[in-house]
């Protein structure tokens, strides 16, 4: 997978976030503060601009620019969390012209660990980790398998009681709603198939 692949991936994520903006915000209205779609859309629009302004020359540069831009532009919890995800991917793939499936899977494993550490979240806390964690091992097999695992993981957050983030303040009332962060993470993984 070369630089063009990673640019296509980020473009696909940007498009999906824009298309699902209102859906993500609606999920966030139920158990958060109704801004998840708007924030990610703002962030990835800025990423689109940053990548166009200074076209990156390596896969690592695409990922690092994406992460840094998200940290600088999004705010909230999703800015640092998604920013850290992409920056860790960028660091982990190294300065190479092409990234193997194996190397990408390994980079995702590191990114998962970094996001879990930053958010001090575990699987089952009803966060983006619930979509990311099951997808990571599947990346070694195929993007299709990873996308399926992420979507299943996101759906599985519905009966969970939130233990992290703003939804946690609701206690039992967070049960019965799909987590917006897990939903957007599934969308990010699913976009790999379109790249």
């Amino acid at each position, binding site marked *: 997978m070369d630089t063009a692949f990673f640019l296509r991936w980020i473009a696909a994520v940007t498009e999906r976030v824009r298309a699902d903006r209102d859906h993500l915000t609606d999920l966030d209205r139920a158990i958060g503060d109704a801004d998840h779609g708007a924030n990610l859309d703002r962030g990835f629009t800025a990423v689109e601009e940053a990548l166009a302004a200074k076209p990156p020359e390596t896969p690592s540069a695409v990922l690092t620019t994406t992460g840094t831009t998200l940290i600088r532009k*999004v705010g909230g919890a*999703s*800015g640092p969390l998604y920013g850290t995800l992409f920056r860790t991917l960028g660091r982990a793939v190294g300065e190479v012209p092409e990234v193997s499936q194996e190397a990408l899977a390994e980079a995702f494993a590191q990114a998962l660990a970094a996001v879990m550490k*930053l958010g001090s979240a575990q699987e089952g806390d009803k966060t983006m980790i619930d979509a990311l964690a099951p997808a990571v091992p599947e990346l070694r097999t195929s993007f299709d398998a990873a996308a399926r695992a992420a979507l299943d993981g996101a759906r599985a957050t519905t009966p969970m009681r939130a233990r992290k983030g703003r939804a946690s*303040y609701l206690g039992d009332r967070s049960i019965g709603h799909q987590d917006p962060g897990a939903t957007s993470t599934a969308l990010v993984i699913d976009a790999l198939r379109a790249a």
Partner: protein
Amino acid sequence: MKKLINAVGDVVPDTLRGMAAAHPSLRVDVENRIVLRAAGPTPGKVGLVSGGGSGHEPLHAGFVGYGMLDAACPGEIFTSPVPDQMIEATKAVDGGAGVLHIVKNYTGDVLNFEMAAELCAEEGAHVVSVLVDDDVAVQDSTYTAGRRGTGATLFVEKMAGALAEQGAPLEAVAAMARTVDARSRSFGVAFSACTVPAAGKPTFDLGPDEIELGIGIHGEPGRSRERFREAREIVRVAMDAIDADLPFSGDVLVMVNGMGATPLMELYVAYGEVDAYLREKGATATRCLVGDYVTSLDMAGFSITTCLLDAELTSLWDHPVETPALRWGR
């Protein structure tokens, strides 16, 4: 949605432009979203920086000035600011004695301030962060992101700000901020949800006979929904929750805070009940604020924040302050 705005996307910059026009004592960087004292940093004084999502006005920008903050970083509505803002603000207010970051305990604020503090430290700045987590409605931190930072943020900014103005070193100012937080508790109640301009509809739905107990300040729902009842009873629910967590005694600083769409008249009704409640418990409300200080856009409802005072805290509260939203003694 009827809101006195020009365009949904311009609410935050338009607010900042208005604040700049109204308050020459502030230097407002609309582009980078930083509000500073026009006079610049005070040499030898610890700088105080706070910030958070917009929509809580006058918090935080309204508390920039003598005796309180040196800088505020407003984010998008209900979304924490980004590290770039905090880093710029920290540099701008560093008078050589270090900088205190006052952070409300919400995941977004915590993460962004954490990243900013790390980057500031890498550049050699002396930064200490304190977390405000006063909301008793969040009970079990094992199963939540921990108690939210709400009304006590104002108390921390005021009293730590006074101590900094008196020339205390960074560690002492940080310790005072933690002391104020430890002695403060809040509880919020909503009568109606607020409407985030970008969303265009209320963040949750409340029936005509319902109230939401234990709300935070970002339009998120609270812990439970109950039937509407008279002021005396609603105040009692809030005060019982605070008292059960940190029993009232001695001198108490009380803030009865409007969430944005509650008449001042009703806030005074509530304050009268709070005052009576404290007497019943053998405590005395010796200092108070009644009004809109830590709001949640157009939410109807109120919050009560209390702080158990001693002589030192009382004197820090009484220390002169001159900001757009809080001023006395000067």
